[in-house]
């Protein structure tokens, strides 16, 4: 296996790539705090506008960032539905009565089946989910004839809508910030940045160098271990343990047949690696010189100033 990309890093050029990882890490944290401080939807929209401009300046494709959001779609939808249904403040926007009847149940079932079948195709899943939710509403609103079982009110309050939008925009902005960090920073630089930033933790006995070394070795071995897992899975599949087929009971045995060898190999590997490191004069806890150095430049200063301004801005807005 060759050239597997670890993490989300995508090689590229542009503003964000030239920043010191330390600046990026701190900036992202500070900007997140700033975003959390904003409590009005309008300020938040301004903030997301600023985030957009940053992406454009940094030549980062917005599509990329939104792909980073994908795993969190479910969370976003859940937040949205939760806010809409349970927030009971502000003016009433919608006040309807929904009916559970023989026809609406059939409609709901039909929509569910249709949704699951289409979703399995894998495309436009998010859109489908929204259409499904809308369809549910329409079905229960209008299919009221035959055997009405029960009715219940469906009320949407103004604050429900604003809050749900507010929470979602806030989440999107925050995720965008962290995606920019991981998209533009090599895992090794990220580790090194973290190491330097965690240095003060020495006071409470945490050695940031060790931590960074552990992370970088883990990163180094991820492709190797994936390769290994693939080999062992194939080897056990040759003995009839097909990880794709089979019942749950068989699955457990199959997973064990993968995990035990993986553990044994990982153990052997770590022992050999420790030997190799020790034989090259590595002594845990001893100071080492470093081949990779981090240097601040003018961009970092500019960025820091900008970030501090953002933070001050949101504090002022909050206080005033």
């Amino acid at each position, binding site marked *: *296996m*060759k*050239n*597997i990309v670890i993490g989300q890093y995508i090689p590229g050029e542009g503003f964000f790539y030239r920043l010191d990882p330390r600046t990026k890490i701190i900036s992202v944290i500070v900007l997140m705090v700033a975003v959390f401080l904003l409590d009005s939807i309008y300020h938040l929209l301004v903030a997301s506008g600023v985030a957009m401009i940053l992406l454009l300046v940094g030549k980062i494709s917005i599509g990329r960032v939104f792909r980073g959001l994908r795993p969190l779609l479910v969370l976003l939808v859940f937040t949205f539905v939760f806010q809409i249904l349970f927030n009971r403040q502000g003016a009433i926007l919608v006040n309807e009565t929904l009916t559970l009847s023989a026809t609406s149940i059939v409609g709901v079932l039909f929509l569910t089946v249709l949704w699951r079948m289409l979703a399995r195709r894998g495309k436009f899943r998010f859109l489908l989910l929204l259409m499904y939710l809308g369809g549910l509403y329409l079905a229960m609103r209008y299919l009221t004839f035959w055997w009405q079982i029960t009715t219940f009110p469906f009320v949407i309050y103004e604050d429900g809508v604003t809050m749900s939008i507010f929470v979602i925009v806030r989440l999107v902005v925050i995720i965008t910030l962290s995606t920019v960090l991981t998209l533009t920073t090599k*895992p*090794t630089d990220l580790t090194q940045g973290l190491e330097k930033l965690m240095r003060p933790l020495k006071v409470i006995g945490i050695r940031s160098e060790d931590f960074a070394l552990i992370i*970088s*070795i883990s*990163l*180094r071995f991820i*492709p*190797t271990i994936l*390769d290994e897992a693939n080999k062992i899975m194939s080897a056990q599949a040759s003995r009839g343990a097909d990880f794709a087929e089979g019942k749950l009971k068989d699955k457990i045995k199959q997973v064990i047949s993968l995990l035990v060898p993986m553990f044994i190999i990982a153990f*052997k*590997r770590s022992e*050999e*690696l420790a*030997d*190799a*490191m*020790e*034989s*090259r*004069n*590595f*002594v845990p806890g*001893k*100071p*080492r*010189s*470093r*081949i*990779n*150095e981090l240097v601040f430049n003018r961009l970092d200063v500019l960025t820091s100033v900008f970030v501090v301004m953002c933070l001050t801005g949101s504090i002022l807005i909050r206080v005033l």
Partner: protein
Amino acid sequence: MSYIEIEDLSFSYTGKRKILENINLLIEQGEWVAVLGHNGSGKSTLAKLMIGLLDPMSGSIKIDSTLLEEETTYEIRKKIGIVFQNPDNQFVGVTVKDDIAFGMENLLVPRAEMLEKIDFFARKVGMSDFLDKEPASLSGGQKQRVAIAGILAMQTKIIIFDEATSMLDPYARAELMDYIRELHDEGITIIMITHDIEEAMLADRLVILKEGKIHADGAKKQLLGQPEVFETSSLELPMAIRIAGMLENNDDKLKAVKEYLWEFSFDR
């Protein structure tokens, strides 16, 4: 005074069965010694003892007149390096450059000097074009060469190869052997642990281990004249020597062929 002095060395993991027993071995500077032995003969254990990864049960190891003990391991490991069998499990760095630097970082070599040395030694092992590559995109032979560069960069004078070619294909193996020959020509002391006789034929001297003891130790030519030494320790002689051993001595022409077969084995 020899460069490496191993005296009465014994080792055991449990205290009961001895993995190594009363090993005595003197190695001179610039020698190329092949340590041969069947699987489980204790040859890799010997390597680990020499670099201080294991502590002997009894006996001593001196390298360049320094006794190997806890306080001196750091100094000893500046003089002696080891390339292990599995290319993957000794690649510490995220990239080739980082891996060559690893040992130097431990020795607190300043960054500017490291960069210079990385360039120099990467070129030496033919890896200059791969400095920013990750191990996943390198072949086994390339990884072993990076390991060598990392050791050389520490100014090491002795390199142990612990079955370092056994996971490589014949092509990569021959290539690595060429690099090792070059190191030897430059005065590096080579200790090659192997069970491959063809590989051992490049050494000046053979040490054969059998069940934890030194079974034979001598110049290559001398030992190859004693086939029983190999037969009794689960090893094979090189094909040419085996054929030579089957030919009669009473015929001039056959004698000439025999002589040539010996020559052939040595000049690989």
